[in-house]
């Protein structure tokens, strides 16, 4: 393994009111290595990283940089030591261009008499982008580029900053970098990381243990705010890691295939000749009660658009969507929801919840009509209904009257699901339901999905990984370039292997 440690955290303690986030954690990064940091949500990863970039101050413990003790009082300070982080939800300002974002708040380097030298900036920008293999013009507003590009821009920005502050071996922290990326983009990301590695150290946080194992030289596992263990690439096995993270082993059958039921006779959803120009060509399929149909395909294959047309978020040009015998009027989410179609969005904070309103209000949103007495909504019924679903979905909240903004991500996701369950949906569209949640949480969701199937709810899902798709669904619809190229049945214990599917996808 490489030479001296660049930065070392020793016996770090950090506790919040009622929570011990970190309990004597040791952590160190050496030159030119990729460290994989894994652990469940709440294991303390994010807190540890926040300390590393000066966003949070440790209660106890010391940080040494190449042997010298240092204190990192804020992100700017950490940046001066060449420590920077690429956040999960991105930190680029949408209405500014790539170039403007690259240098935001550090334009001094390009200043003359208070004015900025746009040419010099543009040249530097082009170099930086070239290094992270981004072809997009630096004058494009961030709002108009893909998540992948944004991520690259952020990485480029960090590299440039560390150079600006004369740090020969910067430390990049990547928090769940791949969740928003397509397969292909993922490849490029890691190849770039490998090349960056030649002059920098990288901390990689991901729930995708596969990519952790493949790409990191060293793997650090946290659990409940403590170091569990640390293993080198050589002897890292996914099963062990999971076992270490969670504290118990998973059954071989992680997707709970045993609980997979056979679809009922009646068709919940019937789609015929659905078309949307420049998105996907005529497509017909059906979902039966209790059936889980998963859409797979690369980004741009049209699967996203199909789903958006199903629940009316986009307007199909032609074709029919029939839900429970009732034909949906195209482009009307209202009609879709009214006819019993649910939708768990990929971005719960901005599309799933009214963060400024209480848990109860969010849970009750869809069923207000049923909580009436004498034509008026009854507070009593509101409360009881909310409490019932808070109970059923095990939402951890001080009270039904707590603002959703004050819930943890997991509980927010549960609130979204509770909202739909309470409204007796016939069909549920799950858009990456396990995105950014840890192994334990994933299991909870799988459990839930199976239960929904038992209750006869049909589901259309799009998952983060192919394995997940295969494991969960009864039937798999493969899309490519806007066309339905294959339909693969996935009965329990006779599941196809990812390789078979990949063939169809690409």
């Amino acid at each position, binding site marked *: 393994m490489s030479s001296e440690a660049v930065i070392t955290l020793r016996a770090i303690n950090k506790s919040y009111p009622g929570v011990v986030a970190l309990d004597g954690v040791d952590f160190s990064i050496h030159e030119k290595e990729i460290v994989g940091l894994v652990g469940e949500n709440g294991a303390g990863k994010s807190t540890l990283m926040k300390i590393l970039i000066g966003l949070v101050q440790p209660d106890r413990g010391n940080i040494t940089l190449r042997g010298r003790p240092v204190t990192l009082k804020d992100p700017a300070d950490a940046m001066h030591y060449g420590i920077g982080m690429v956040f999960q939800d991105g930190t680029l300002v949408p209405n500014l261009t790539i170039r403007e974002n690259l240098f935001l708040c550090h334009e001094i380097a390009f200043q003359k008499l208070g004015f900025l030298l746009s040419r010099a900036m543009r040249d530097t920008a082009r170099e930086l982008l070239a290094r992270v293999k981004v072809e997009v013009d630096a004058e494009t507003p961030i709002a108009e580029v893909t998540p992948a590009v944004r991520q690259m821009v952020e990485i480029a920005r960090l590299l440039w900053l560390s150079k600006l502050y004369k740090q020969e071996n910067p430390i990049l922290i990547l928090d769940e970098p791949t969740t928003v990326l397509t397969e292909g983009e993922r490849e490029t990301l890691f190849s770039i990381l490998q090349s960056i590695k030649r002059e920098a150290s990288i901390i990689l946080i991901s729930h995708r243990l596969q990519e952790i194992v493949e790409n990191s030289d060293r793997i650090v596992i946290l659990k409940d705010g403590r170091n569990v263990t640390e293993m080198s690439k050589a002897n890292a096995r996914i099963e062990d890691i999971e076992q270490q993270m969670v504290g118990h082993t998973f059954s071989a059958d992680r997707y709970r295939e045993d609980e997979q039921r056979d679809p009922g006779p009646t068709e919940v959803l019937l789609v015929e000749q659905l078309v949307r120009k420049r998105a996907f060509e005529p497509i017909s399929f059906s979902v039966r009660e209790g059936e889980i149909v998963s859409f797979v395909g690369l980004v741009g294959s049209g699967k996203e658009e199909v789903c958006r047309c199903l629940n009316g978020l986009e307007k199909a040009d032609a074709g029919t969507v029939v839900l429970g015998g009732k034909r949906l009027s195209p482009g009307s989410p209202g009609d879709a929801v009214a006819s019993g179609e649910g939708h768990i969005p990929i971005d719960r904070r901005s599309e799933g919840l009214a963060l400024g309103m209480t848990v109860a209000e969010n849970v009750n949103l869809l069923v207000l009509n049923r909580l009436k007495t004498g034509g008026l909504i009854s507070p009593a019924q509101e409360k009881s209904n909310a409490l019932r679903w808070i109970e059923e979905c095990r939402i951890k909240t001080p009270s039904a009257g707590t603002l959703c903004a004050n819930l943890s991500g997991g509980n927010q996701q549960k609130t979204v699901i509770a909202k739909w369950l309470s409204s007796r949906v016939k069909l549920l569209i799950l858009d990456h339901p396990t995105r950014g949640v840890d192994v334990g949480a994933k299991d*909870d969701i799988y459990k839930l999905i199976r239960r929904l199937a038992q209750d006869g709810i049909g589901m259309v899902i799009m998952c983060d990984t192919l394995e997940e798709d295969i494991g969960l669904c009864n039937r798999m619809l493969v899309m490519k370039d806007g066309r339905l190229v294959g339909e693969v049945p996935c009965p329990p214990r006779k599941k196809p292997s990812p390789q078979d599917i990949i063939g169809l996808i690409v």
Partner: protein
Amino acid sequence: MDAWGSRNAAGAQERTRALAGRVRIPAILYAVGLLVVLLLVFTLGNRNFLSLYNLNTIASYAAILLVVGLGQMCTILIGGIDLSVGGLMSFVSVLFVVSVKTVGFLAYPLCIAVGVIFGYLNGNLLTRIRIPSFIATLGTGGIMTSLALLVSPLPVDAPAARYGMLEIVNGSVLHVGNLLLLTLLVFVVFYVLLRFTVIGKSIFYVGSNITMSWMSGIDIVKTRNFAYILSGVGAALAAIFLSCGQYGGDPALGKVYILNSIAAVVVGGTALTGGTGGPINTLIGAFVLSTMENGMNVVGVNAYFQQSILGAVIVASVFLTFDRSKVSMVK
């Protein structure tokens, strides 16, 4: 085991605990506290302040602010704003008096209908033609001001012969002015609408997160139009009440109520960002403004200083009543 987000983001966790831990004083209480302080101070300044006569005066002035404010509040709750209340009030006030002369009692339903239609138009400018409410209503407000002047360039006096028809508002039941009773009725209606009906609650959902509301199947077009209709009705009613009280219509009557109505809403603690607030807030807001207006004269504050003090007080009161826990950014 339940690892599912059990201790996800420590930051959020901390907030949750904090919330569960110590009792937060709801911003609304500060508003009430402010009102109490005002009452106390003015009573100390002049004991006549608490006389029945004067309380009635305060209530009557607050009534108008409240009625127009309740409507305004709906558009603000839903994340928009209605700058056309001024123009609409001017128009309705002249229309009302003119029509009282001609069609008699029908003037009441007629004017309310005008409010409904106008509000509906405002709503559609926003929802269908997709013009930001700020600009749409600024424009339509100007149009209504002109219409008011075209109907009657001069203030029109209700003919003394027809004063009887204004008794609906000007009369009183058991020494309580009809104006107050009607206003109470309006308040109750608004309260029930916003708290106990689906479309009313939808206003809060849409104001709080319009994308989510749309994806959850709330008819955002209908809801937003409804909010603007409510605003139109509120303004129309306020204009009717005023015209009755003043025994005449005035084509320049509305102007002052554009900012005053918004002030009444915001002083009560309703956030201009939408989603948080409610009728109670507006009630308090209206009474704070009215109490100031009245109290400063009752204790004899020099007319020169009154505007300045009012300005200072609304800033202070919003400082107190603005619930920052619900609004991420203050803009």
